[in-house]
């Protein structure tokens, strides 16, 4: 796709200024630089303009204009996306939703809240905490990421093992279609018709722009118990994870970090004081009704002891628990203390394959001569290998990207997926072929074409370009056992 025609663009900028006011339209080079990428920094591209609508109607008018004049565009929230979904590779106009940042309505009795897309994830929990409620999906970036972005990416978080990801918490959406029409999707459970809510959640801004979101809110659990376990062997830690699940316990969270990751977080802003010579740390949290909960965390501790844990302790109070979580949730950023650059992967595996996969990742690390730190949601098998590299060393960026792709291949080989919560974006477009056949990818782009017939809304993302003359990979045939 070519960059946007200059005259066409100038006419749009004038239209946008008339509609929104001058201060809500950015178009000078120095203003656009900040929008060249999101939290995936390997690719960059300047937008043609950045516009800031105040409401659904303005968004719809902008989209209608862009659609009529065939100018590509993409929605953007806080720009915390890790796969490059909000990077304007083709000079797209960025429709920033950060002005639409209000909590519109909270309905405690019906356990739901209506927010604008630019509303910050954690602010929702803060706004309703006084009444004893919270919003469950908690991506590590929750202090800055928007709920609109969460819908786009179907964001997860540390606590989705028990409570599910964004798609399990979205009840309704107001959608500005790629043509600029406004439609309401969902509302009450089981709205008759296809589950468009489910399709739109995680569609990475390629099916339209969401301008209002109705989410489920939950009552804050009565009690939380957290255990921290330090292991001398990653494999022991992995087996402990499997055993906790096998006991019939559904932890609210089950997180793991390996030695390299621990080195990073201990150098970061929230050190816990982990011994530097341990190989793995496990954070296990159970929540729910107070009665019987201590027995559950006791069982968790018991399981850890059966797997040669060096030390296992229970959080004495909320402050200690918060310290452990602050350390974990800032792990990505903390890698900056031990490496100039890092690339984070997001593969998912069946959790029983954890020891096998960790071993393979170690081999990839050795082969590519790059350190890989592992931070992951062990309970649901969602790995975040952080590939550490130095972009100033020629060839190292490319090596890191290749190592990342290999890690994803390993995940798919054991029956997993290439992304659990960060999305495909630009980063993993080609890796989609590892997971899906051409036919299966075409089935998805068919759906995109229904919502986005001119391909103007976030073009060239999520799916690899159709291959020419490649052999179509057939799915394994089914046999009746």
């Amino acid at each position, binding site marked *: 796709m070519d960059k946007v025609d200059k005259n066409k663009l100038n006419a749009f900028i004038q239209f946008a200024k008339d509609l929104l006011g001058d201060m809500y339209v950015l178009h000078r080079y120095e203003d656009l630089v900040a929008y060249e990428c999101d939290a995936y920094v390997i690719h960059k591209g300047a937008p043609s303009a950045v516009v800031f609508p105040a409401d659904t109607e303005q968004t719809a008018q902008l989209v209608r204009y862009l659609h009529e004049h065939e100018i590509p565009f993409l929605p953007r929230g806080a720009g915390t996306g890790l796969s490059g979904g909000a990077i304007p590779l083709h000079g797209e106009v960025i429709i920033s939703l950060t002005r639409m940042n209000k909590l519109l309505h909270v309905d*405690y*009795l*019906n*356990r739901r809240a209506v927010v604008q897309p630019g509303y910050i994830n954690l602010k929702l929990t803060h706004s309703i905490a006084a009444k*004893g409620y919270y919003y469950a999906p908690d991506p590590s970036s929750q202090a800055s990421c928007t709920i609109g972005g969460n819908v786009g*990416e179907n964001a997860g978080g540390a606590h*989705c*093992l028990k409570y*599910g990801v964004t*798609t399990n918490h979205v009840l309704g959406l107001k959608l500005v279609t790629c043509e600029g*029409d406004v*439609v*309401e*999707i969902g509302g*009450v*459970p*089981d*709205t*008759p*018709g296809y589950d*468009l*809510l*489910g*399709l739109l959640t*995680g*569609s990475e801004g390629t099916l339209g722009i969401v301008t209002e979101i109705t989410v489920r809110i939950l*009552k804050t*659990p*009565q009690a939380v118990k957290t255990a921290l376990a330090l292991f001398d062997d990653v494999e022991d830690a992995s087996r402990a994870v499997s055993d906790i699940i096998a006991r019939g*316990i*559904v932890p609210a969270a089950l997180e793991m970090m390996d030695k390299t990751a621990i080195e990073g977080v201990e150098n970061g802003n929230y050190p816990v004081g982990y011994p530097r010579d341990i190989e793995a740390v496990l954070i296990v949290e159970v929540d729910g*009704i107070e009665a*019987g909960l201590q*027995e559950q965390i006791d069982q968790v501790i018991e399981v850890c002891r059966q797997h040669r844990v060096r030390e296992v302790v229970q959080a004495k109070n909320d402050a200690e628990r918060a310290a452990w979580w602050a350390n974990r949730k800032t792990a990505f950023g903390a890698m900056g203390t031990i490496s100039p650059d890092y690339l984070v992967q997001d593969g*998912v595996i*069946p*959790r*029983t394959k954890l020891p096998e996969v960790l071993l393979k990742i170690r081999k990839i690390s050795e082969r590519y001569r790059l350190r890989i730190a592992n931070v992951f949601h062990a309970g*649901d*098998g*969602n790995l975040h290998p952080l590939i550490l590299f130095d972009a100033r060393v020629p060839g190292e960026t490319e090596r890191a990207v290749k190592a990342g792709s290999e890690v994803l291949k390993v995940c798919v080989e054991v*029956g*997993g*997926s*290439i*992304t*659990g919560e960060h999305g*495909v974006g630009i980063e993993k477009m080609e890796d*989609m072929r590892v997971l*899906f*056949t051409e*036919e299966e990818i075409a*089935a*998805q782009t*068919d*759906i995109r074409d*229904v919502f986005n017939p001119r391909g103007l809304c976030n073009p060239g993302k*999520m799916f690899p370009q159709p291959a020419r003359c490649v052999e179509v990979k057939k*799915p394994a045939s089914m046999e*009746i056992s």
Partner: protein
Amino acid sequence: MNRPSVPEAAEVLAEMTGGGCVVNEGADSSADAAYRICSGLTVYPRNEEEVANVLKWANENGYRVAPQGGGTKDALGQAVTDPDLIISMQKINGIVQHSAGDLIVTAYAGTTIAQLQQTLARAGQVLPIDPGHEEQTTLGGLVAANTSGLKRGMYGSIRDYLIATRVVYPDGRRLRTGAKVVKNVAGYDMNKLFVGSMGTLGILTEVTVKVRPLPQSTGCALLQADNLEHIQKLQAALLDTQLEPCVFELTDRLPDEFDAGKAYVVVTFEDVLPSVRYQLEQLRQIASTCGVQVLDSSDGDEGKEMAEKVLGAIRKRWPTPDHVVPASTVVALKLSSLLADVPALYDKVRLAAEECGLEATFNGGLSSGISRAIVTVHNEERVGNEHHDEALKQWIMKTQSLLEECGGHAVVEFAPKRLKSSIAVWGKDRPDMVLMRGIKNKIDPQGTLNPGRFVGGI
């Protein structure tokens, strides 16, 4: 196009499926025929490849297809015309893989829920969805019809558990959706496309779902109130606590041994025993402040038994074609609403029935927002089956407007064909119909799969 005759089709399809094609001769006059999908041909493919061959053949030869699992949802959907062909999934059943350590299970679409739950129970696990009629309901059917039960408030519905499928498109393409891991955002969430799609897009052949550990303990309490205000108070109070009710259902009747003819609330808790006991105790206290009387409650084995008895009785009321008594007409509506509207609907929907000279039974999820209202009329011989049809239609339309007024929906889940021709089974069309039609046209441009059965004529 020269459309093959039924005998010609039977021959071709029999060959494709190793003799698995049955010609259904003559009109079915049994009591349940009014609620069944009727077709001249039923094909029983034995594997996915045969499903693909049969469906592709039908698509190329202008044969309209109704996929079928256990047949419990035959009466769901707008019946425009009978299909030319039923593709039964009954022979494609069994567990493909239960990976207990990963809390996931893959089964063929024709596997019954009972069969699935038995396998899971052996490993101390469960798919926490209770659609009722589990001996007949198939996993594929559960997904396609988006069936849920009384535990929905706590555990959600099949869309929250479905992680991967294998599906056959009308042109014979065999595709996978999702991945067999509990978390996955690679590409669009294509699994969702098939949840509640009523077999209008493709035929599911294999389904992978997340499962949970079986709860260690169950507690059950039966409560009774003299008026709805007390129930509203109870609902608001209980939902504002940190208690975690599994079932929180309003119902107008209980099994005889408990029944005294008033509005009841059934509450169950599933957790470790100390938690269940604590929650039952808290519930008793909350109930007393709301003027709601606790009739009975128990935990441990007794609690489980009581819950199964009471919940089983409610689920049994949900009709299937197999359960229609001769010389009766049954209509069931599924209502979705905001939680707080459920108690008022209890009264309004039953009152609407009374105004039409009918009597409705009702159960409503106080923590799920899903309710069911059912009318059964017994036809006296002299007047024939159609005698009450006008009244039933009136009730359906009244109930649909009641739900629309409060931002909800009433779907006719069960009704005889003769009634459905003159009512909007799925309620009013919504603006997002344009997108839904687009999806249908993209995947099934010939309109081969269940034409006219779904929303907006899809």
